[in-house]
C-alpha cells in the first residue's frame, strides 16, 4: 500500500465518522422531541457524547487528510476542492451554532435537576423542539451531503 492509499482510507474513515456523528445527533433530537422531564433529557443526552467524539474526529480527520491528499495527488486550487473547503468551514460554523441550541437544553435540564426540580417542564420541551435547532441540523445534513456529492463527482477534475 502506498501513502495515497493510507491517506484516502483515513480520509474516508474520518468522513464516515462525521456522518455517524450526524446520525447520532439525529437520533438524540428525534428521541428528545417529546421529552419534558429533566432527568429524561439528561439521560438522553448521554448518547450524544459519542456524537461529540465522532464529530471531532470526523471534522479534524477530513480536513487534515483531505488537504494532505489534495497536496499529494490533486491541485489544492481545483474548484471542487475549494468548494469542499468552503462547505467544511460553513459546516463548522453551523455545527457550532447548533451545538449552542442543544447544549443549552441539556444544561437547562441539568440546572433544573440540581435545583431539585424533576417535574415536566414546558420550557425544556420548547428548547428541545427549537425551530432554530431543527433548521441548523437540517442545514448541517445538507452541507455534509453536498460535500459528499462533491467528493464523489469531483466536478471539473
Amino acid at each position, binding site marked *: *500500500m502506498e501513502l495515497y*492509499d*493510507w491517506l*484516502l*482510507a483515513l*480520509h*474516508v*474513515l474520518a*468522513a*464516515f465518522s462525521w*456522518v*455517524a*456523528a*450526524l*446520525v*447520532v445527533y439525529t*437520533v438524540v433530537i428525534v*428521541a428528545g422531541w417529546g421529552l419534558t422531564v429533566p432527568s*429524561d433529557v439528561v*439521560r*438522553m443526552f*448521554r*448518547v450524544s457524547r*459519542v456524537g461529540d467524539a*465522532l464529530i471531532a474526529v470526523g471534522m479534524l480527520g477530513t480536513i487534515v487528510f483531505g488537504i494532505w491528499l489534495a497536496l499529494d*495527488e490533486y491541485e489544492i486550487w481545483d474548484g471542487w476542492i475549494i468548494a469542499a473547503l468552503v462547505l467544511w468551514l460553513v459546516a463548522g460554523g453551523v455545527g457550532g451554532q447548533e451545538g449552542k441550541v442543544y447544549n443549552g437544553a441539556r444544561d437547562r435540564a441539568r440546572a433544573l435537576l440540581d435545583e431539585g426540580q424533576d417535574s415536566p417542564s414546558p420550557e425544556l420541551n420548547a428548547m428541545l423542539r427549537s425551530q432554530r435547532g431543527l433548521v441548523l441540523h437540517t442545514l448541517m445534513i445538507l452541507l455534509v*451531503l453536498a460535500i*459528499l*456529492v462533491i467528493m*464523489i*463527482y*469531483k466536478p471539473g*477534475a
Partner: protein
Amino acid sequence: MLAVIRPDDWNFPLLLHVLGASVLLGALIAALTAQLLAWKRESPDVISFARLSFRTLLFLAIPAWFLMRIGGEWIAVREGWDDVPEEPAWIGIGYLTAEAGGILILIGTILAGIGARNLGRSNGERGGTLVRVATVLIVLVVIAYVVTTWAMSAKPD
C-alpha cells in the same frame, strides 16, 4: 488515480453505496451506545435505552443496510466485478461483511426488540440478557464495518 478516470455514470451508485454505508455505521454506533448505557443501569433507564436502541436499528440501520447493499451491487455491476473469474480481496471482504453483517443486524434487531418489550412489561426485571446479546452482535458488526470501510477505500492487494 482511479477516482479521476471513473466514468460519470458510476458516480450515482457509488454515492448511494457510500451514503448508505456511512448512515448504517452511524445508526449502529447510536444503537450500540444506547445498548451499552442500558447494560448495567436500573429501570427506567434500561428500558428507555433498550427501546431507543431497538428503534434505531429497526428504522435507521436496516433501511441504511439496504441502501448500502443495493448501491454496492449496482456499482459492482457497473464496474464489471460480477463478471471476473477471481475478484480482488477488498471486494470479497465487502461482500462477506455486508451479507454476514446484515444477518447479525437482523438477529440483533429482533433480540433488542424482544428484550426491550420484556423489559417494559416486567419493569426492567426480564429481557436484559437479550439486549446484552444484541449488544455483543452489534459490537462485532461495527468492528467488521470499520475494517471493511478501510479495505474498500484503501483496496489492499
